Structure formats: C-alpha cells, structure tokens
C-alpha cells in the first residue's frame, strides 16, 4: 500500500478538447450585441460560491459571515506551523450537489497547492484543485434556452481580508494594514464556464441561473452583496461569426448582476475600440470601478504568474463512491429550470415565473393554482407584494385561499395586498384577517346608488366625462373609494361607470 503515492502527479490530466461539448452555437434567439456591427463578445464566467457548511474547508473553525475580526479561527486555518488540513465532508457533498445540478461528471479528485505570497493567505499557498477537479463537463440551460458549457466546478479555500489603514484606504499609501482571517479557509466552489456567453444580458442570466441553482440545492446562500457569491468575467471580442479566441481580460470586483452587465459592456467596447484603432488588448486582470463606470488595469505585473501547482501531499484524493453520488442525486430538490417549467405549463407569465422561482416562492403559486386560483393573480402577488422577509414561511394554503378570495371578488386587490402583508407577519388565515377589517365585497346595487349620488353632486364633471374627458374616471373612482373606505373593487367601479355613461 502506497498511500501517499496516490496523491502524486501520476493522474491523466483532463484535456481541454474533452471539454468542448457545448461550444457550438445553439439555435435559440440571442440578445442583440451591444457592439458596433461586425463584432461579437466572447465571455466566460468564473463564479465562486461560498459553501454553506458549519465549519471551514479544512479546519474545525466556524464558517460564519462577519463577526469580530479573527474570532472564527483555529490553528489549521491560520496555517500555523505543524498544522494539517482535513477535508470537510459536508463541503464535498454540497459541491457534488452543485456538480450534479450542473449535469457534471463527478470524479475522483485531487487537491493541489497554488503557491503565491499574499498576506491574507495564511500559508502563502491556497489549497485548490488543478488537473483533477471534482466536477467536470457540465452545462447550464438559461431561461432563453441557450446552453452554456461548464468546464469544471472545483473545491478550494477562501482567503482572509486585508484592510489598509491610511489616507485613501488603498494599499500603496497605507500607514499599516490589518488582516482578518475569519474568512480564511471558508469552503468555496469555483464554477468555470466555457466562453459560450455572447453578451451582458446572457452573462447576467447565466449568473442568475447559477445563483438560483446553488441556492435551490442548499449549497450556498448565493449573496452577491455579502460576497458569498462572486463573479469574475473573462471578456474578449472577435469578428462576428468567427470562431477565434482573442486576447481576454479578466474583470474582477463585480459586486452585483447589474455591475456584471455594465462591466462586460464597457470592457468589450474597450476591446473593439482598441482593435479599431489598430491596437490590441493585453491579457491582464482588470478591476471594475463602479463609480467611474469603467474597468481599470490592476497593478502591472512584471512577470507572468507562476503558481507552481502540485498535488498537496498533506491530503489524499477524494474518491466519491458511485453509491454516495447516487444518494446525493436522489436527494436533490427540483431545480429552478424544472420549477419554472411547472409554472409556465400552468400558464404563468415567463418574467413573473422567473422571479417567483428566484425568490424561492414558486411553490406558493403552484399550491394556489392547484386550489383553483388563477396563476396570474398568484404571480402578481409573489412578484409585487412578497419581496419581504418571512415570505418563504408563508402558509401555502393560506396564500391559495387569499388569491381565491380575491379572484372571487370577496376582496379587492388593495384589500388582498393588505391582508397578505398581515398574513406574512402574523401567520394567520386570510378569512380571519379580512373579517376583522370588515373587508367584504360590496353589493353592486349599493355601489350603483352611491354612484348616482356622486353624479348628482358633480353634474358638470359627469357631463364632461360623458363627452369623452376620460381622465375624470379617476375622480369618480376616488370619490367612491373614499365613500367606501377603499372596500370597492376598482374593476367593478369601472364597469359601472362605463354602463352609466352609455345609458
């Protein structure tokens, strides 16, 4: 038994030609290029997702966002002399979940050291995966139908964070620097796409879909704003229709989907401008400047990075058994794409459907529909009225009952919105809440009498309304709402006004 020999570099490297299954154009409709005629963008995304484990990738320290600096630490994640890493099995499981959700092949994998000096990296090397990553050869189908290839999704550890104390907060004129190692050793999954993305909107759609997937499978909380999900974009351009791959730049420091789109648009245009001027871009890492709306070159690198990767001799290969992979596969929840399809099949509007799934509230809509409520009303509530904390805990039966009451005319849309808000806060049933407020649909004959009185009080306005001054409809509607304290249904009022006008 030569246990340690297993970790050495006698593995067959994965060749890039094995990974090109998805590089051909699919027939779906693509967004128009935001570039001068004759140019197209070639974009690949590297997404880092922090895995939602209790402890860090190789150490027993707590994996927790925030906290006092240097409190979630342990000798192992500080890389103290003599310490050794031990792989967090939960991190492997979550990584496999994502890999399977991305249609990847899950394989025996090896951890490698990526060597470079940086003060927020305690060992001055990062444990990552190199020529034998856990997940390879996957794909993501975007809502548009376009398929983007996923080259690999590999495990690695995060670094700490430096704070430069000085006038500008920048490193070059800092008086001193502070390092917080709370994040050092947090497990990351790096998902690397093929350069199959052709524009900013498609890039945003890819990142959003990947975010939805990692959240759906419980692998990560996927928050761009907290940095638990981070996107780097590799951008190049080429003459439209060509299959060449020109010099790319890697854009970092993109902290939202909106920034991602803007950064890509800026960078691609910069490349085109360079080519049109007879110049060309140099391969480099660039940082997105949100305020300036532009990318900037990082500090110039005198020599190319040489990370001197080699198999980490402190770790043994991770070889997930077929049974384990099958168990993980069997336990996977429905993926965003399937969930969207279920609502689309029920007749949902695609944009609202996408939003409902992204908010993880699609099951509310499905329950409402199966209870006989109309899907459009259910989705409108989800999209417009449920972007609040606690929405995910909403009782689906209650939500279905609410939408049904509204569609039956028992509640106006205004009342339904109010009741819904209180349902989220209190967890109570809509019928009880509606009854407490005295929300009962008004009899049309009651409204009829009320409207006659209002017309009598405003004869001039009524005449002008009948002569075609349609904006006065709002005045009459407002008067009725005022008289009924908002209980009247706007649609019913509109119908009443229309029928009275024509008589």
């Amino acid at each position, binding site marked *: 038994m030569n246990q340690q020999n297993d970790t050495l570099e006698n593995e067959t490297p994965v060749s890039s030609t094995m990974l090109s299954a998805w590089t051909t154009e699919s027939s779906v409709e693509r967004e128009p290029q935001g570039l001068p005629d004759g140019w197209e963008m070639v974009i690949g995304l590297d997404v880092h997702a922090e895995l939602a484990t209790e402890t860090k990738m190789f150490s027993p320290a707590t994996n927790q966002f925030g906290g006092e600096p240097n409190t979630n630490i342990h000798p192992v994640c500080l890389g103290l*002399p003599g310490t050794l890493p031990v792989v967090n099995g939960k991190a492997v499981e979550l990584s496999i979940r994502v890999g399977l959700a991305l249609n990847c092949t899950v394989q025996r994998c090896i951890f490698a050291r990526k060597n470079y000096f940086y003060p927020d990296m305690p060992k001055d090397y990062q444990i990552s995966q190199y020529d034998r990553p856990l997940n390879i050869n996957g794909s993501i189908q975007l809502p548009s139908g376009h398929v983007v290839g996923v080259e690999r999704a590999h495990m690695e550890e995060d670094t700490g964070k430096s704070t430069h104390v000085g006038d500008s907060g920048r490193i070059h004129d800092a008086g001193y620097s502070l390092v917080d190692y709370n994040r050092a050793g947090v497990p990351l999954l790096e998902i690397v796409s093929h350069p199959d993305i052709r524009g900013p909107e498609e890039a945003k759609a890819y990142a959003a879909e990947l975010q939805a997937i990692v959240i759906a499978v419980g692998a990560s909380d996927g928050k761009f704003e907290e940095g638990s999900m981070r996107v780097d974009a590799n951008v190049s351009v080429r003459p439209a229709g060509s299959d060449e791959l020109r010099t790319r730049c890697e854009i970092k420091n993109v902290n939202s989907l909106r920034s991602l789109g803007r950064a890509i648009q800026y960078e691609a245009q910069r490349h085109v401008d360079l080519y049109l001027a007879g110049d060309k871009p140099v391969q480099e890492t660039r940082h997105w400047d949100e305020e300036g709306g532009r990318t900037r070159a990082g500090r110039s690198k005198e020599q190319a990075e040489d990370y001197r990767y080699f198999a980490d001799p402190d770790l043994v290969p991770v070889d997930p058994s077929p049974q384990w992979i099958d168990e993980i596969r069997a336990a996977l929840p429905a993926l965003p794409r399937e969930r969207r399809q279920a609502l689309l099949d029920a007749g949902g509007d695609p944009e609202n459907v996408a939003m409902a799934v992204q908010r993880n509230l699609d099951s509310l809509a499905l329950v409402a529909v199966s209870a006989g409520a109309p899907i459009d009303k259910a989705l409108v509530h989800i999209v417009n009225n449920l972007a609040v904390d606690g929405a995910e805990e909403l009782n689906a039966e209650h939500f279905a009952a609410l939408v049904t009451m509204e569609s039956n005319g028992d509640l106006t849309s205004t009342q339904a919105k109010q009741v819904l808000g209180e349902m989220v806060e209190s967890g109570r049933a809509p019928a009880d809440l509606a009854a407490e407020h005295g929300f009962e649909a008004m009899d049309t004959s009651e409204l009829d009498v009320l409207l006659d009185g209002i017309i009598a009080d405003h004869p001039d306005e009524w005449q002008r309304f009948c002569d075609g001054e349609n904006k006065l409809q709002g005045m009459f509607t407002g008067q009725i709402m005022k008289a009924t304290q908002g209980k009247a249904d706007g649609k019913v009022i509109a119908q009443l006004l229309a029928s009275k006008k024509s008589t």
Partner: protein
Amino acid sequence: MTDAPITGLTLAADIAAGRSSAVAALDGHLARIAEREDEIHAFNLVTADQARAAAESIDQRLAAGEDVGPLAGVPVALKDNMCTEGVATTCSSRILEGWIPPYDATVVQKLEAAGAVMVGKTNLDEFAMGSSTENSAFGPTLNPLDTSRVPGGSSGGSAAAVAAGFAPLSLGSDTGGSIRQPAALCGVVGMKPSYGAVSRYGLIAFASSLDQIGPFTHDVADSAALFEVIAGHDPQDSTSIPHQALTDAGVLSVSERLSEGVDGLRVGVISELMGSIDGFEPEVLAQTRAAADALAGAGAKVDEVSIPSAIYGLSAYYLIAPAEASSNLARYDGVRYGHREQGKANTGLMMSASRTAGFGAEVKRRIMLGTYGLSAGYHDAFYGKAQRVRTLIINDFERAYQDFDVLLSPTSPCVAFPFGAKADPLTMYLNDVATIPSNLAGHPALSVPFGTGADNMPVGVQVLAPMLGEAVMYQVAAEIERAAVAAGGAS
C-alpha cells in the same frame, strides 16, 4: 564513559515498582544535563521547571494508585520541530523567533498520556535540512562519543541527548534519514516508521510526503515500546493510516516479536548499498556483512539482492523534498508570527527581507532548488520526473519484498565525521543515499548499532521492511542487537 545508561523500560519498571520515582529519575537526568550540556549543546531549551511539575504530579498519581501509563515518569526529549503548547518551538531557525505554539503535537499528547516527562527541545539542522546539525541557527550539537565530530542530523540533538544520557528516550523526525543517520553516528537505536503510522499533526513540515516522527533509544526494546506509544491513527492527519490496518499488520504490538528470533526469515543485503558506489567506508561495509552473517548464524536465509533504482533515490529526493519545502516554508513571511524586518516600504519587501534575514543558507538553497523545480517549463523535467523515479523505486522495493522479509544495508556510508569535513553540500547530501529510499517508498527502516568502524566510532546497520512491516523489522533488529552485545561482550 560513565556506567551503562539506564533504559526507559528499566526506569519505568523501577518507578512503577516504587524503587525509584519520576522526580528522582528527572533529577538524575537533569544532573547529567548540568554536567555536559554546555559542552554538547543537545538542547535548544531545557524545560526543567515544567518537567519537575509534571514529575511531581506523576508521583502523586502513582501514589494514589492510578495507572499513569507505560512510560510513567520516564524523561523524554523532543526534537525542536514538534509543537508544544506554551513552549517555544524554533526548528533551530531565527525565523520562528518568539513563536510559542498554542497547541500540542499529537505525539506530545500521546507521550503525556503515557506518563512520559518532557525535559526539553533538542537541536536540529534548521527545519531538519542537513545531516550534521551544523545548520542550526543556534550552533551545532557535538557528538557525545567524540566532541570533535558531528552527531549526524538533522535530529542530532535528539540522538546526542540519548547518547549522552540526558534522557533515555527522545523523538526525532526523518525525511531522508534524519533519525537513522544520527542514531548510527551516536551509537543508539533510531527508527523511521511506515509513512502514516505516526501522526504528523504538530510536526513542523519539511517535506510532507516524506516526514515521519520516530524514536531514539538505547536499545531495540525501548524503541519498540516508544514506537507503540506514539503510533496510531489520527483523524487530524489525513495521511494517517486507519487503525484497523495498523492493528492487522501488528504495528501497534511490535514488542511481542522481539524475542522470536529470525529462524527461517529471508534477509536480503542490498548490493547497490554495499560498496558499488563511492564513499562507503570499508569498516562500515565489514560490520554490515558481519551483522548479516550473525543473522544467518541465527537461522535466517541471507542473500544479496539488487535494487538498481535505489541509488537514484538521492537525485529524486533532492528534487521532491525541496519542492515540498519551498511551499511548506512559504508561510514564514513575517506577517503573522516569527521574525519580521521593520521599516520596509511595502508588504512584499517586508516579506523578502524577513525571509532573507530569518533563514539560513541551506534552507534558502533548498527553497530555491524546490521553487525552480516546480516552475513553469521545468516542472515536468524535474518534479514530474522525480515523482516517476519515486514510483520506480517503490516498485523495485516491492518486488524485492516478494523474495525477502527484510532488507539490510549500512545506515550511513561513514561513521561520525569531524566538523566541517563535508562543507560541500553535494558531499553532505551523499550521506543520505542508504536512508532516502525508505522515505521515498514510505516504508519503515531502523538503524541498530553493530560494532565500530574507523577511529572506534559506532557503526549503524539498517534494517528495511515493507509497508507496515514494523513487526518483522523489530524482530530482526532485536537479533542483530543480541549479536552485537554478544560480540561486544567477547571483545
């Protein structure tokens, strides 16, 4: 020379039976340290106060009838590259100046659980890189048998501590021979376990795929007993061998085999390490043959065996070990602990100035070698090829073990040499030619004293065994020791 040194097992038995006490045992050894340590410099730090507190506590527990463990009250010295909570751990390097580990190495916890009393941290070649202890930032250790000579290295302090009677037991670490070679040069028993038999957690890494902790003792029985204490699976070390595999192979009960003799065992003497390459002293070869003859006389079937790749181990080792070291030693950058050069304009300059000032010449040499060997464009020609040679060596040894139970060779090509005699690094590296293959293969190997060579200095004979073959290795070593004692008694 003073009286024959008392062994750890004898001391443990005396303390357990009330004929001695932990405090008395400690005082006896501290007295010897007081007498000769200034001359020998085996220790970077003698922890007398902590040791006394520990010994007193053990005596109290013994008096209360507690089972304190198999090494209750026995002093033990630790190579200063094993982490000890609250006690400075330096690797004999300036770069770890002022660093105090906040945790104990697994072996330290195991020793404590066995009742052993740590008396101090022993000197070594800086970061265990060397074969003479001349590379220590705190000055060399002297060979207690002849202070004009080196004690070997890199665990020279641990070997000298046992040889000088400062402690009956000590631990060293062996990456390319760093336990076995100093054991041979100081006339004690030194053993490198199968890779993964002893936890590396808390051992400050030199080359992770090669490093193993092992015992220094006066005799084979002590070696077996100390090994049994420190061996075992450790969930904190991913390369640690599972408990079941260790017990199935008898690795955790090697003492049982010591009196079994060698009748019918097949012993192969490695031809390539018996003089076919330069640098082996004739007396060393003669003693190794005598040891083989003694085994044959005790009923073993002894034969020559050729392992052609064995001599290429040296070249492979000096690519693989520095490559791993270049990465393992990157963390000593002045940012978090240890030596930091002040007043530098930026972090990068601070790091390189701190490393330049903090590391000695040999460490820098190996970091540069290793960095080069892993660099883009050279990676496959150097590191990649060395790994393939390593695979060949493993295959060749495993083939040999189809025909032999153990293999035999000299531990070191020469006896202890005078200070400065091997100032050229390549000459020094050649010292490891016989010990390196076991590290590359991950196999266990042990050096047992057998007679003397030039200038009456001790010779060590190396017993090599297959993966997890500690039991048969100890069985054979015990026989060689009996023959050596018999021959010594006769002369």
